[in-house]
């Protein structure tokens, strides 16, 4: 079928494509490179600069978990705050193992091994 010659239909089609392209998010499919590119060359106005320079956080460091990440952070709330004393033995061991791993990595970095 040849394209319709009604200019109103074309104007409506342009509106539809604008709306679709703005609303349709590809965010979950972004590569690291695309994220870096946007982070370095994305828009940053004078107004945005003012907002972040004067920014006062509305949340504390232990913010409410978002539904999207709820499953990823299933364990997070269990030991986000406070000391290790309140932790389960297994969790404590895991944290200690990670600390040791990071300390070892830092030692090797200091020696110039990495």
């Amino acid at each position, binding site marked *: 079928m040849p394209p319709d010659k009604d200019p109103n239909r074309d104007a409506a089609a342009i509106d539809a494509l604008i709306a*679709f392209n703005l609303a349709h998010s590809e965010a979950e499919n972004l590569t690291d490179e695309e994220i870096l590119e946007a982070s*370095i060359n994305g828009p940053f106005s004078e107004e945005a600069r003012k907002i972040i320079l004067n920014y006062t956080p509305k949340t504390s460091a232990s913010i409410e978990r978002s539904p999207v990440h709820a499953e*990823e952070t299933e364990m997070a709330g269990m030991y986000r705050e406070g000391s290790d004393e309140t932790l389960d033995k297994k969790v404590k061991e895991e944290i200690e193992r990670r600390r040791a791993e990071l300390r070892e990595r830092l030692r090797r970095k200091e020696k110039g091994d990495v």
Partner: protein
Amino acid sequence: MNTPDQRLRLPDEDEIKLSLIDDDANARKPVVERLWLAFREPLMRSLGQNHPLLTLEDHADMAYDAVAKYCGDFRSRKDWENKPIYMVMARIAINLGRDRYKKVSLRWTREVDTVAAEVAEVVANTKCGEAWHAADKSTRAKISQIIRDEAAKMKPRQRQVASAFTLNWHKELTAKEARDFIFEQTGELLSLDQYKRALAEVRSKLGAPILQLLKDEGYAP
């Protein structure tokens, strides 16, 4: 030239990570401030590009929340240990933006296939639709990016109108309904004239890449 892995990496990332799994919660607190200062601008840039319809204030909230969330959850996330801090944080921020967007537009995000079908119906048998379908995938992706970049650069009022226009496209709101919608979202009541002028700007700026495509594909003089 920096490789992708080196860009936006701090020289002391391992030290920072070690602080984040410190036994003492107080040792973790300064890290939030440190990472916020280091990464607030790139996070704002990334959010501006990926969520152009949200406000700059929203972007700042999401950028800060991403930093706080990274610091708060790091101890429980073994899988973050070997990843660059910024990359994890940027993905958290983008996901927070998606959540925020869902709150204002459940229909777009939950029924994206239905809306896509409605868009397809509207563009069917138009010059615009023909040109869109004739274009290859990379051309369409490029146009989509130009539209989003233009939206991100718009003035606040135009952004409000673009947001109302996009979120309610399928409802064909009257000018009054659209102005009421903007008022509900932002607390700002635009005059009819302000609304019309902003909408004309939005259509002109965001429609330009599509009109260019029509020309390139030979559908317009």
